[in-house]
């Protein structure tokens, strides 16, 4: 039975409902199998452990060729892969060639061209240069074999030997050629929407604050595309969890709150107005229970791009007004976000634009809006890689003079303390956009960013500051860097730390033009990120694919998966869990600087891995993560006895269903099966499973809940889980 018939039967009532359903469900039909049908295979020689490689000049391999065994550094050579199928435009940037030497140093060789050499059983020729492009280690020495591997869309090929200088010297472990440990088994016939179960969980890790059974079932029924369409239109925040409505208060706490400190009235007043508490508990409640997960998630990602931070920004109402800008624009146009955020008072305070005047200009916002929020420091290719000059050096996007000119553009803006809807006597207005005082605006001419076909590269003198702001933001917005810059940032936050240039390029192309001639459409960008073949699939085998779960995600993913509830299990959590990510070095909405909690170019010490979130992973925080895993598995956030309590209801997990599973199956195999699916989308290795099973079985069968909690802890604290891939 086809899925459409099933759907029609189930949804006869109400013509309108039917139309809506058809409109959103239709795309589910076209969700392709996200998995590679066969493993990627790097062709070998007659010697099956050695890669078939040819110099550029040699004839095509045809039958029994005698390939060259060893090459020199700097040689560009050809190798052959099968088991892949390219989509239009997918070329060299979709592939990476990794090489490892006997010292276990990893190198990456640039792929310079890809072409199809055999159409029938598709085989592609990869041309690549034997030269490390990462630069962490010195170039490999020409003294023997390297072990090389091709990756594509998060999948890894077999690994074969390549002689450099000469052959020999490296022992190879026989590697299985399987590229997927998952799937292969028959899927039940009744999957109508999105049948790839591992990928459903993976998708939910990327698009929400954590998978749970309800969402998994929903995606299974309606498919990813339909769910995305729903999410793009869903109201936000949830009706039951509106943004806290908190008034603007005097800057001085002593004027705003009762001065008899320590009394319940004073505590409540300070917590409500002068702390992050209201925003944080609202944020976590929405993450735990909100239906509009994707907007919440994208807004959270954007808060790590356009950073402002408590306690520099001192009032909850200020930070909430800032968050509204993020969430309102999460599926809107990036140009609108740029202007709304430029005029957001919290940003104006945080980066000093609100106090920059023609006579005493402040460069802070001008510099960071370029460097951090829009174009970055170096000229980018459309796929996010650096453009290089003739000396192989990256090319700066602007210089100090440019910053000085933009500084002049941004002069004259200030808080709207009178005459705006939220202007409040005795308080600074952080709710309405900044307003211009033309008298403080520098009206000299300005030279802005110059780039090919630049929009508004110069501004003549004598302009009104309002008009000039739009001209200048257009100048930035149309810079060719913005698409790849923003696209790569969002990919890193949602999917994987080190996306291929091909992936960045596909998404950036959508940023540049959403198909209807519109630049900067974030809705289309988010859709492109989440539907990309590099994001999708039941399993990713590329050893450099994935990302560390940031502390906030680690917290919400765990709680959501296990039916987060109040401490006594009778009602919803109050959302007071921010101490958990704080202990792991990430206090929501309190990044240490405008550079966020971690730099976007962080490389794990001692490795070549690009991994922003690892900026928060060190010996101390790694143990904090273990301790938080222990806490969430075995304990709960209890109702505290402060007056008023920070946790009026508390937070805990509800594992009754899993406890039943553990009770019914003394072998604990079913428990492990369930957790393998829920937490690791089916990728748990046999060794991992065996080890956890041993620990679980050490718990008496009479304590099935301890068995469950033991397993939860061991998975949640494992690196295998903490790396989302």
């Amino acid at each position, binding site marked *: 039975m086809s899925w459409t018939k099933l759907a029609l039967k189930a949804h006869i009532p109400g013509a309108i409902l039917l139309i809506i359903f058809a409109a959103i469900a239709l795309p589910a039909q076209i969700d392709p199998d996200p998995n590679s049908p066969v493993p990627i295979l790097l062709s070998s020689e007659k010697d099956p452990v050695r890669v078939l490689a040819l110099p550029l000049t040699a004839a095509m391999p045809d039958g029994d060729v005698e390939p060259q065994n060893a090459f020199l550094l700097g040689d560009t050579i050809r190798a052959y892969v099968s088991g892949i199928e390219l989509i239009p435009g997918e070329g060299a940037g979709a592939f990476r060639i990794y090489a*490892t030497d006997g010292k*276990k140093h*990893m190198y990456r060789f640039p792929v310079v061209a890809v072409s199809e050499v055999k159409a029938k059983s598709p085989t592609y020729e990869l041309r690549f240069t034997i030269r490390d492009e990462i630069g*962490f*280690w010195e170039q490999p020495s020409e003294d023997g074999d390297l*072990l090389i591997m091709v990756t594509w869309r998060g999948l890894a090929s077999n690994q074969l030997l390549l002689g450099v200088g000469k052959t020999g010297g490296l*022992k*190879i472990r026989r590697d299985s050629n399987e590229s997927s440990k998952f799937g292969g088994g028959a899927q039940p016939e009744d999957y109508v929407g999105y049948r790839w179960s591992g990928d459903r969980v993976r998708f939910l890790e990327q698009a929400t604050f954590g998978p749970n059974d309800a969402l998994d079932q929903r995606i299974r029924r309606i498919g990813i595309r339909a769910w995305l369409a729903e999410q793009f239109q869903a109201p936000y925040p949830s009706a039951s969890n509106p943004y806290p409505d908190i008034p603007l208060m005097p800057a001085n706490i002593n004027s705003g709150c009762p001065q008899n400190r320590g009394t319940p009235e004073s505590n409540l007043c300070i917590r409500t107005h002068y702390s992050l508490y209201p925003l944080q508990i609202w944020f976590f409640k929405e993450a735990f229970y909100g239906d509009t997960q994707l907007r919440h998630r994208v807004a959270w990602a954007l808060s790590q791009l356009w950073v402002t931070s408590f306690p520099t920004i001192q009032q909850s109402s200020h930070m909430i007004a800032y968050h509204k800008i993020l969430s309102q624009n999460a599926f809107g146009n990036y140009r609108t976000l740029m202007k709304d955020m430029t005029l957001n008072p919290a940003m104006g305070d945080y980066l*000093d634009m609100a*106090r*920059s005047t023609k*006579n*005493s200009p*402040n*460069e802070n916002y001008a510099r960071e809006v370029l460097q951090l929020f829009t174009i970055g*420091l170096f000229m980018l290719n459309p796929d996010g890689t650096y453009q290089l000059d003739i000396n192989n050096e990256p090319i*700066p996007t602007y210089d100090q*003079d440019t910053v000085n000119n933009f500084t002049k553009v941004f002069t004259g803006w200030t808080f709207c303390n009178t005459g705006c809807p939220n202007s409040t006597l005795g308080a600074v207005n952080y709710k309405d956009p900044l307003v211009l005082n033309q008298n403080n605006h520098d009206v000299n001419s300005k030279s802005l960013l110059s780039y090919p076909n630049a929009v508004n590269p110069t501004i003549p003198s004598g302009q009104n500051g309002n008009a000039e702001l739009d001209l200048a933001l257009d100048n930035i917005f149309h810079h060719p860097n913005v698409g790849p810059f923003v696209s790569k940032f969002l990919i890193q936050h949602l999917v994987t*730390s080190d996306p291929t240039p091909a992936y960045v390029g596909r998404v950036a192309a959508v940023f540049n033009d959403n198909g209807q001639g519109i630049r900067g459409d974030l809705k289309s960008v988010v859709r492109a990120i989440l539907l990309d073949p590099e994001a999708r699939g039941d399993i990713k085998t590329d*050893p*450099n694919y*994935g990302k*560390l779960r940031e502390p906030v995600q680690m917290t919400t993913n765990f709680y959501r998966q296990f039916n987060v509830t109040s401490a006594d299990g009778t009602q919803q959590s109050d959302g007071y869990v921010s101490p958990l990510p704080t202990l792991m070095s990430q206090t929501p909405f309190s990044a*240490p*600087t405008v*550079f966020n909690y971690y730099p976007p170019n962080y*490389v794990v*010490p*001692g*490795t*070549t*891995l690009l*991994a922003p979130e*690892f900026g*928060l*992973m*060190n*010996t*101390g*925080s*790694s*143990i904090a993560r273990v*301790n938080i895993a*222990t*806490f969430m598995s075995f304990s709960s956030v209890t109702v505290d006895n402060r007056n008023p309590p920070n946790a009026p209801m508390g937070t805990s997990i509800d594992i009754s269903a899993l406890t039943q599973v553990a009770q019914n199956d003394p072998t604990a195999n079913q428990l492990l099966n369930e957790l393998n699916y829920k937490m690791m989308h089916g990728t748990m290795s046999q*060794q*991992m499973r065996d080890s*956890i099973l041993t*620990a679980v079985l*050490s718990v008496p069968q009479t304590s099935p809940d*301890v068995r469950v909690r*033991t397993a939860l*802890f*061991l998975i949640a*604290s*494992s*690196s*295998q889980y*903490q*790396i989302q891939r």
Partner: protein
Amino acid sequence: MKESRREFIKKAGCAMGMVTLASQVEHFGRMTALAQKVDGGKRRRARLGSNYKALVCVFLAGGNDGNNTIVPIHNDASVSNYSVYSAARAPFGLAIAQNQLLPVSVPSIGNLSYGLNPAFGPQANGNNGIHELWAQGKLAFATNVGTLVSPMTKAQYQNNSVAKPYQLFSHLDQVVQYQAGRSDTFSFTGWGGRVSDNMSETSNPNGLVPMITSIDGSQLFTAGQTTQPLAIADSNTPLNQVLNPIGFGDDPVSQARLQSFNELRAVDRDNGYVDAASAITDSAMAANAALATFQDVTAPFPNTSVGRQLKQVARLIKKQADLNIDRQIFYVERGGFDTHNNQLGAQTNNLGEVSQAVRAFYDEMVLQGMASDVTVFMMTDFGRTMNPAGTGGAVGSDHGWGNHMFVLGDSVNGGNFYGVNTSNGTPFPNLLIDGPDDATNNTANARGRWIPTTSVEQYAATLARWYGLAEEDMTAVFPNIGSFPSSDLGFML
């Protein structure tokens, strides 16, 4: 029989190291600290006698305003005097009054009088601060230090005939260059990490913790090619708790869980990220075993972030003999120096905390008998513009370049300024906006950003040499040091 915790971890650690070494293809790119120990233990030179030395980096994050850290008090017109300073800053409300500055006499500038920020003086309910250590010869400043590719004049700055450090005035990039100890190209490693790469095997062959420790999270400064730095919390957490996983009792169920927890880190390391995370946790568990006991410090430390960080450093130094280490490098950080606004109050407060904490640390080193073996040095993002940003109560300053760094300890040749001379023939810059030391292309944009005369790597190399880095290894650690005339500024005895 139940093994002691330390034995267990040691064995687990060794087992993991073997696994790591044995798997030819599963492990990319990194030798873990544990693997190094297994690998290198037999081939090391004999351990030197007990000659402990430590470097403690205090990073003033955000870019400390050097122009209000050291101010000329003198009225000598031949070099920039107080009037030059006051003319630039007083109209905006950013000048410190001449009579509030804490005077120091500078032999290298004809014993002229300069003044330190008042925050370096005594504080009520605190200690005497670091100013008085100048007269005792324990405190020196390296002046007009900054990121450079090679020495550069103003003319060369303007005509681009000499390469500039990449992305001048940008926080992230300038922090990276200070911490990396090079500005000619991007670096994956910090100079502390490279010193550690270079010296760990010879100096700490049987060290129970890595050579390098951050009390402020992950920092490029601490990252080497092979060094896996330790990062722990400040003294609010006792040393024996900083890396201790909670919730494991002695009961068999707990122990089974602990065993599985340890086993899981040894498997599935074919993914680079999983491998990296497990390696960090391995390192933490090994260090945890080594930190099971400790003695607290004697001197009173201020209960500020930087005070607690330095207190934790002092605890580790007190334990150095137990940890089998002869050389240690530490990183602590005090943020809040990006004073685009409200600078006067904020910088005074921040520098006051730093001065109080560093002085407490120095006093503790004296009590431990380590004051000659431990050198505290400062780094920061960059200097700030002489020309203020904003005005009145909200006045601040913008991102600059050349800046002044304090160095402190009994091995410091204190009581002087050090560094390569500026245009005025002294190590202290000419403070004239649009003057000969101001990095600007035209008068209209001149803000008073001093072109450094002394490079970060000259400053760092001077410290590393004292620490014991061999001459022949200097260029391996500081690849661009050859671009500068000297690798020893002379401030270390």
